[in-house]
């Protein structure tokens, strides 16, 4: 009996200790915890396998903030290298997500009705106490940047604070060796690649693999090509008389509701000659891509280029720092920030420059989970966001990463090497037509990539491809109309 009593005593004691620890009594119980999933800005120590320094500046900001607000504890969720979307859906469904999550701004139109995220419009109209003289937080951002987080209901659900760009990274030494120079038009671009291929190198490193390749490069290729090839038809698709000019405000020209209407009206169809022309150009170009590009792991794209096996790779501003420091690179390199123009000689629908393959919202695109309100930490979460978006904090934070330009009006101190991407974006604007990633449904996009893969690999012809895409496109438009009946008005 004594033995039983002793066991009971121990169990009670253990329960009491765990209760104390859980409620954090005596261990800073007053602190309010704000968790953040900062994606590529998540601070961490350098590991042996790292070939360049990982970002750490969030720790500096955390310390400064906690000094100002001793009652708040900022915590960072470790970076999730794969399966982030699945993780997020699960966390959101279970209301267990961190208070701040990284989120693709384009998906807001798809998900805002789920009630996952806090409507930030009222908070953006209040002053940011960390910016001297600021009356409205929203005013510190460049308008297209912050507006990119706007959902179809007109409210802003995202804090977008940076600008990202892409460009063709090329091996200068290899270009010299083969005797080619940076091309300015598409036909030259193909000739350069032909010569590089004849010299025994891979001309253009790219992946159309389903585990990340086609979602990135397939999307970039189709977006810029469609913008050029459909240029003469933009007004008809939009249902307006005046020309549709490029801007760099995402979704400004052809938002989802416009695309859905155009698909239903038939003014935009995969059976259009412009669509087929896009496929012809891609197929023609693909002869210069790596062997089996539709099964090439996306990581290999950079590796092929940096190890000198491939001459060019379409990468982005986020690779600026890695390329500079990567010990695997043994050659001089350069960037031409835009894919060369398709002229009328190459295509009857050509003749204008490609848009800049750049945009707002790279690493700094965060949403605040509704659960923050339920946990009673919304005020602290908003305040932390105000603190890190203040230019004196945001700019060193982005500089520390090295791959993204600030999206604030005040850019003093920003990394000058990224200016080229921003200039391109401002000069040429971004693509007007974006029917894929964020405008229609994810199911449509997945099916599109599967079909594109089959087409580029020679498994289906152009007719079969466009028939199937058209079917999927109409299905997606119908689904969106059912979800948003107001769009049919």
């Amino acid at each position, binding site marked *: 009996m004594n033995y039983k009593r002793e066991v009971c005593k121990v169990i009670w004691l253990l329960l009491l200790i765990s209760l104390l620890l859980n409620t954090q009594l005596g261990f800073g119980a007053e602190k309010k915890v704000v968790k953040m999933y900062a994606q590529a800005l998540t601070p961490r120590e350098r590991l042996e396998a790292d070939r360049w320094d990982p970002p750490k500046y969030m720790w500096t900001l955390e310390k400064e903030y906690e000094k100002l607000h001793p009652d708040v504890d900022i915590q960072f969720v470790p970076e999730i290298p794969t399966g982030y979307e699945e993780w997020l859906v699960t966390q959101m469904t279970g209301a267990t997500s961190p208070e701040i999550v990284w989120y693709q701004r384009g998906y807001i139109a798809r998900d805002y*009705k*789920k009630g996952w995220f806090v409507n930030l419009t009222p908070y953006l109209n209040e002053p940011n106490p960390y910016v001297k003289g600021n009356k409205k937080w929203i005013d510190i951002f460049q308008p297209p940047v912050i507006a990119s987080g706007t959902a179809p209901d007109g409210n802003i659900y995202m804090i977008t604070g940076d600008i990202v760009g892409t460009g063709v990274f090329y091996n200068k030494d290899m270009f010299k060796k083969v005797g080619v120079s940076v091309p300015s038009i598409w036909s030259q671009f193909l000739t350069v690649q032909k010569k590089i291929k004849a010299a025994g190198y891979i001309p253009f490193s790219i992946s159309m693999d389903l585990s990340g390749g086609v979602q990135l490069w397939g999307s970039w290729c189709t977006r810029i090509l469609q913008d050029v090839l459909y240029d003469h038809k933009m007004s008809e698709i939009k249902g307006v008389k005046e020309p549709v000019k490029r801007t760099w405000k995402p979704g400004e020209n052809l938002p989802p509701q416009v695309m859905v209407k155009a698909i239903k009206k038939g003014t935009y169809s995969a059976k259009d000659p412009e669509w087929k022309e896009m496929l012809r150009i891609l197929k023609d170009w693909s002869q210069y891509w790596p062997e089996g590009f539709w*099964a090439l*792991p996306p990581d290999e794209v950079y590796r092929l280029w940096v190890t000198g096996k491939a001459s060019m790779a379409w990468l982005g501003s986020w690779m600026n720092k890695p390329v500079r420091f990567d010990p695997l690179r043994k050659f001089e390199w350069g960037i031409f920030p835009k894919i060369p123009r398709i002229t009328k000689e190459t295509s009857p629908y050509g003749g204008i420059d490609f848009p800049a393959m750049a945009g707002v919202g790279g690493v700094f695109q965060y949403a605040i989970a509704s659960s923050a309100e339920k946990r009673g930490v919304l005020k602290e979460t908003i305040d932390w966001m105000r603190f890190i978006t203040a230019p004196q904090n945001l700019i060193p934070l982005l500089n520390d990463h090295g791959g993204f330009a600030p999206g604030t009006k005040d850019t003093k101190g920003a990394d000058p090497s990224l200016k080229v991407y921003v200039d391109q974006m401002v000069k040429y604007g971004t693509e007007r037509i974006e029917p894929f990633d964020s405008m229609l449904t994810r199911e449509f996009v*997945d099916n599109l990539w599967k079909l594109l*893969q089959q087409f580029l*690999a020679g498994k289906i012809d152009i007719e079969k491809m466009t028939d199937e895409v058209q079917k999927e496109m109409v299905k997606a438009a119908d689904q969106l109309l059912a979800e948003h009946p107001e769009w049919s008005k």
Partner: protein
Amino acid sequence: MNSMKGNNKEKGIFREILNRRECYLLILPTFLLLLTFNYYPAFSAIYHSFFEWDGANFIRFIGFGNFINLFKDPTIPLSFLNTLRLTIASLLINLTFPLLAASLIFHLKNLRYAYFYRVLFVIPMVVPAMVIFMIWRFIYSPTTGLLNQLLRTIGLGHLARPWLGDFDLALYAVIFVGFPWVAGTSTLIYLAGFQNIPIELLDAVAIDGASTWTRFWRIELPLIMGQIKLIVILTLIGSIQGFVNIMVMTNGGPGEATMVPGLYLYRNAMYYNKMGYACAIGTFLFLIIITLTYLNLRYLKSGVEYQA
């Protein structure tokens, strides 16, 4: 009278439980965890398969609507055909290579060697499956992959290809992962079966002058039929439900060449907000697995259960 007897019996059971409450309290957490994480989600999935549900707010009862859509969906037959191929291949693999390995280890005369090989076959199990899939993905890489490099080095460059990108070979490339398929649980289960065979019986077989093949086919194999049955069930369940290898290596591609129902379910649930439809696919898989398990238990005889 009968009801009084019944009441007494019930009281007896409750009294027994009360008397042994510590034991019941100790197993209670396991039961609660099982109910919460195994039974509740399974029954919830069956229930939700009758709803159009986006996993968040929208939910509407649609009866058998999801099941009707399932039979109209062109991806479903294709994915089930792939699963059938994978299942047949997995059964063939699990019923041969690990069995051979276990038999060879069992018949090693030197016990130290037997122990050494047993450990050798177990060590790879420590490596997470995900790592193995990632390594094989790089082995199959079309440009820098080990397999193609090897083929080119030995003058068979014409055979090099994008293994995971070949529409006709991708599924077989996934099946080939883990070759020679001897390291793993199956080998250990077979080995346990072999070790359970009484040594006297094997001695008697030796004295009778039976050949190695006769001994294996007539004596050992019937005596490990219980293990074979278990392997068959585990392989069936694993092949029908599993999709991690596919997701990591091909994500169902190229095109839909390696799509399987598990991955399609996952995509519908996680990416397309079609939780109700995903539940219907899950329920359908559950029905298939339970039918196959029943058939296996009913028609695959366990052979002789030796009692010492």
